[in-house]
């Protein structure tokens, strides 16, 4: 019978695709499919910008500095909740600024607790960015 058995190849359309709104154990890329880079901008956020977090608890950031002439900098994370309707720089439950320092010529990764904020926006001065660098953001809850 189609779709059953460990070795049987199911017919098209018989895969079940889970499309959860957050609550993932695996970090889920918030910019798109796995491997999609997130956006960093130099300006403060305003209006309809940023990435949707699906109300997840943790934010995973990874910055790959390609070793170019741009100096290492600091990525500041801004948060937006629909219930409040305004952007603000996030300070976590421990009182720490949610920001990550990049490292020249190296890959830096860090996890932050963002407690279900609806959207995040990443800011870093343009002088610290380079087109060859890479930046990824993901969220998880467990």
């Amino acid at each position, binding site marked *: 019978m189609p779709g059953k058995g460990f070795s049987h190849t199911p017919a098209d359309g018989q895969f079940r695709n889970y499309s959860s709104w*957050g*609550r993932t154990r695996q970090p889920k890329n918030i910019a798109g499919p796995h491997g999609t880079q997130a956006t960093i901008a130099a*300006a*403060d956020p*305003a*209006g*309809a*910008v940023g990435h949707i977090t699906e*109300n*997840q*608890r943790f934010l995973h950031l990874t910055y790959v500095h390609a070793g170019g002439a741009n100096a290492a900098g600091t990525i500041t994370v*801004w*948060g*937006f*909740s*629909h*219930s*409040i*309707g*305004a*952007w*603000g*720089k*996030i*300070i*976590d*439950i*421990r*009182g720490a600024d949610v920001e990550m320092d990049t490292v020249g010529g190296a890959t830096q990764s860090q996890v932050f*607790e*963002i*407690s*279900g*904020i*609806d959207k995040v926006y990443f800011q870093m001065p343009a002088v610290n960015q380079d087109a060859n660098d890479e930046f990824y953001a993901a969220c998880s*809850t467990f």
Partner: protein
Amino acid sequence: MSRRINLNAINFDETDVTSGIRIDNSIEKYRFTLDETEHDHLLGGPGNAGHTSPLSNRADLPFSISAWVNLREAPLDKFNSIVTKWSQGVGGLGAKEFLFSIVKSNVSGTTRTRLIFALYDDVSNTGTQNRFRGSVDFPLNQWVHVVVTYGANPDGENDVTDITVYQDGTELINDQDGQYQINDNYEAMPAYNDSFSPLVIGNVNKYIKDGVHEEMPFRGKIADVCIFNKKLSESEVTEIYNNGAVKNMANFSDTDSLVSWWKLGDDLDSPRPDGIKNYIEGANHGTISGAATIVPEPSLLTDRVRDKNHTHTARSPSRQPKNLANDHQVFIHGGIGGDMPTQDPTQASPGVVATNQKILHTFWKAEAGAGKTHNIKVFGFSYASGQWAPLNDIYGDPIELTTTDDPVDKYRLFEISGVDKLYFKQTGDALVDSDLFAAAVSSL
């Protein structure tokens, strides 16, 4: 819970003279007045090489402009542009069509801040205008609804300007003193201008004086600009004024006449190029220039609601933060929420119900100032003890926010671990009306 939304607005910063919103592809789109002398002066204007004027003998087109403005200051003889199609100093004719603005001026010994509207006869380059100047002082630091209508005098009557200006739904009286070559006689001004200037909100296209860019930026905030292809009636102006609440123009009684609606910072708007959307036609969007920024404006009321009915019915827990002020996007201090208490809670103080959630989300935006200290202290109440007390988080730290001298713009999280109710108190120097504080709770 309602579907209320907080409006945004555009704040125009005059320290950057280029602050404004330039509307894309707007030169011909918003050309309402025409040169009836058959002089095809547009061929001489910059950026219009090869352009052919519309057919002569075509009459002016009626139009109306509506906007919400909050003027911060009005230096003497400085124009605060609301909506313009206007340039000066760029050479050639046809630079000016209309100017809708506020200016403080000394007229016959009396200094007043006035709402003005001018249609230009720029073919002669003499500055001839058909100009309206309101006879009442324009207020500062409050939202005002302004409308100008132009009927184009379809019957060609003499001594008829066919310009009407409204302020908060009330028609203003024209108060002119002949300062400019003003012609009230439509027939005597056949050469209303065919401008090559784009439409600009919050500024003019260019104003070069003695080789220096001065422009004429608005000093304050503007929200919801609409353009109509007809002369609005008095009843329609009253409808759009909507008793002081920004109207959802999707419900306007004559949407066919609504050519463009820029919400200025709401919905899909962003600081990107073409980020200020025209929500009528999907074209003629605006680009923010200079130091103009999108800002939250919770004090500006509206009857617009969110498209989706977002109703919180669960007491707890929620992953998405839930606003503590019992309504979406309401600030505890600022906007319709009013001011935060300055006294400790008493046993009778109701506080706000925290629905036993784990995380407290706070948003705080304040200007502060040199030598000023602002403090927001959070108290908690648990039915188990029946007492209010200053709240500490699970790390033993008091839950409070403080700033001295410096402005703040932060989103601060605290772990409150299921406390029943919360109370927010401000101490130190008083927060001002434009400061904002909001709080929400979630369980992640």
